[in-house]
């Protein structure tokens, strides 16, 4: 906002009264009501500095005048102008507002405020004030001109916004006709097998790239898919299996892991270090979202803290805790699909803009959008209910519908709940759950799943997998809970 210039106000003893000579004011300025001849003197001094373009001193003496007479609209207005000249637009706005508070009929105040708002890029607000001036002074050419100028800008901005959203609707994907692309005979590079990416293709492509050759664009367009995984919960060997089945992460094989990487499973450290490693390796094509288990409370109870302290140090755990706080809470794919670990909100009307504004570098609060993103669950019936978890809420298909409509989205993908088949489609396809920890806790016998989402159609494709063996880790304070055999 400002250019950093600061005004230092110092308290001075009142001056002795000096007999005042008549001071002539500029035409339209009001005369001061009473008292504070000293204030007037100070104001005159400030005006002089202003004329000489010594804005710092002008501000200084307007401020002193205000100390003696704090309910003078002119002083505020003049100081506001001085601030404008020194590009302190925030202070200018504050002073203009104060001037109008003191005297709502003070036309110059509206001018000042409008100018400040223009400088701050708040054109709609500026337009309102210009409107006021024009209404009160219909013959003021300058006022009319400023109003028209401002109006033009406001209209231009609205137009830009409108066409911007139109443009994102028409993505490149829609204009591609991949089906009818042909691959030339002399292309010797890797080709998709049946239009599908296979491990063989991946390996060939990686080698092809290694030789600095180019993949045919037909294949390049069609590798525009992302794999979304749900909870992995320290099940490192099952994570390795996902990479075996679906390929290692790379810039052409992007992944999104939707939270709950640690706790419960006894190999949480291995999981999280692997995921962080890939994040560093492919920052634009490997994404991690925060789950409710990327928090101190859960880590303390469900094993991750114990595991880190056992394998490393308490300080290491502190570091994980800090990093977890920076994990993003949600991700939007192609402006159509929103992914978060938990679900939607305890109240209607939450927008994507609201989510962007969340200050996430913290432990989640007990309620509110940040809490809901990590904790809520869908329910089959309409409306909302108290969550069976005791935190956040359960939300029905109507809530999903309204949220998607308001934010111009197609569906949400979330995780957070174990599902026998590894995934579940609810709310008429608008709410999808994906869970990637098979045989959860070595007990549940569930399948894991991951989703392929192609940019071309954004139709989710589900892939299921079962648990693989893992080492019989020697029971430790954190791992022991997962080797429970039930109630013997």
């Amino acid at each position, binding site marked *: 906002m400002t250019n950093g210039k600061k005004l230092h106000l110092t308290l001075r003893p009142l001056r002795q009264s000096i007999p005042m000579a008549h001071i002539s004011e500029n035409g339209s300025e009001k005369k001061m009501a009473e008292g504070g001849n000293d204030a007037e003197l100070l104001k005159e001094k400030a005006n002089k500095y202003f004329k000489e373009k010594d804005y710092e001193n002008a501000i200084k003496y307007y401020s002193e005048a205000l100390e003696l007479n704090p309910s003078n609209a002119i002083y505020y207005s003049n100081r506001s102008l001085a601030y404008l000249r020194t590009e302190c637009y925030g202070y200018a706005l504050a002073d203009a507002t104060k001037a109008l508070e003191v005297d709502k009929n003070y036309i110059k105040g509206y001018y000042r405020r409008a100018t400040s708002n223009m400088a701050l890029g708040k054109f709609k607000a500026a337009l309102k004030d210009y409107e006021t001036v024009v209404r009160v002074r219909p013959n003021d050419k300058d006022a009319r001109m400023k109003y028209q100028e401002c109006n033009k800008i406001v209209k231009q901005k609205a137009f830009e916004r409108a066409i911007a959203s139109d443009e994102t609707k028409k993505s490149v994907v829609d204009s591609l006709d991949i089906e009818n692309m042909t691959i030339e005979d002399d292309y010797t590079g890797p080709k998709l097998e049946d239009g599908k990416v296979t491990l063989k293709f991946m390996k060939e492509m990686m080698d092809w790239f290694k030789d600095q050759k180019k993949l045919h664009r037909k294949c390049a367009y069609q590798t525009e898919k992302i794999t979304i995984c749900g909870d992995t919960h320290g099940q490192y060997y099952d994570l390795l299996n996902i990479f075996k089945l679906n390929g290692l992460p790379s810039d052409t094989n992007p992944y999104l892991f939707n939270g709950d990487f640690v706790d419960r499973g006894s190999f949480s450290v291995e999981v999280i270090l692997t995921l962080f490693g890939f994040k560093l390796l492919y920052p634009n094509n490997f994404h991690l979202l925060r789950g409710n288990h990327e928090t101190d409370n859960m880590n303390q109870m*469900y094993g991750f803290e114990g595991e880190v302290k056992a394998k490393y140090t308490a300080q290491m755990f502190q570091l994980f805790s800090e990093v977890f706080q920076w994990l993003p809470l949600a991700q939007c794919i192609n402006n159509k699909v929103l992914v978060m670990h938990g679900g939607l909100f305890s109240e209607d009307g939450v927008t994507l803009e609201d989510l962007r504004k969340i200050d996430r570098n913290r432990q989640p609060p007990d309620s509110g959008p940040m809490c809901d993103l990590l904790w809520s669950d869908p329910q089959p019936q309409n409306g909302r209910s108290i969550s069976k*978890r005791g935190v956040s809420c359960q939300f029905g298909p109507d809530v999903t519908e309204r949220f998607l409509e308001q934010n111009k989205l197609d569906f949400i993908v979330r995780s957070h*709940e174990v599902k026998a088949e590894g995934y579940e489609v609810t709310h008429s396809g608008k709410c999808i759950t994906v869970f990637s920890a098979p045989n959860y806790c*070595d*007990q549940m*016998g569930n399948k894991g799943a991951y989703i392929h989402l192609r940019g071309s159609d954004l139709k989710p494709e589900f892939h299921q997998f079962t648990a693989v063996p893992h080492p019989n880790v020697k029971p430790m304070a*954190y791992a022991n*809970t*997962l080797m429970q055999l*039930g109630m013997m």
Partner: protein
Amino acid sequence: GRAAGRESPMAARQPFTDTDTADEAVRATCDDATTCKRFATSKGYWKDPYIQYFVRSVGDRKAPEINRGYYARVQGVNHLLDAFLRKTQCDCQVINLGAGLDTTFWRLKDENLMPRKFFEVDFPTVVARKIHNIKTKPPLSKPIIETHSTDSLLLDAHSLESDRYCIIGADLRDISSLDEKLKKFQLNPELPTLLLSECVLVYMTPSHSSNLVHWAAETFHTAMFINYEQVNMSDRFGQVMIENLQRRQCTLAGVEACQTLDSQKDRFLKTGWEHVDALDMMTVYSMLPQDDVARIERLEFLDEKELLQQLLQHYNICWATKDKLNLGNAHFNVSLMNGYVSCERTSK
């Protein structure tokens, strides 16, 4: 099955058979139960001031669903047991089959709810261990001594007998030996008797368990048999549990009877019991006094309710009765919901 009572240490050691390994694994489950109860009580799920004398250390943290599961088990079984004791005005016997390191006798003594005699039966090595603990820990031995009429208790390596408490080393698969031992220690078939088995029958073959429950029906004319163990085992969760236990050489030889609540009931109806009921632990959990349930749920936050649900749905309490003295067992108030619920009769 193995004969009760070991040969002297000087005799030639017999080679370890498969049965030996299986039995050893079964005995080890006694430790699982005890350590889980030790942890849960240390967290305040229920009070048991005696378990610390059987296992000193609180041990590793257990998952919240495990603690809640044990809470449901202990509350459910105790409700039934206590109801029987009150109904018979303690003029009865209790036999805890496969008792392990259970502390019920001491609880009943504290609560003035002791039956005429409390019997415990388990493998000789388990019993030897328990006797050792009793002998060396005054809080355990005092209540027994206090309730005994003379100065000395009858005590050997695998049994301890007092007026009100008796613990016997025996193999539950050897019925004649079991019967002989119990009668030697003054088991009275004329008294209303409660038999209790918690995760016991599932470790023996259906034929062995059938013999056991049949013997009970034949021996006592007025009795209740409470059986707590697995149920609904034919699904994925059940399969995984069986596999997990197998990896510890622990075979659920009697899992056939654990397919459904009906199969649990059938084993009693087919062996001479008159009425039988069974509830899965999910149902029991919902019928326990809900203010106390709310209290324990606040002890530890459970992150995935589905884990508890699956666990509870795969265990059950089944209780069978025969009631020659017409004590009113047919209308037995289960008292699981403070008297609101009366169990339904299921007759042949």
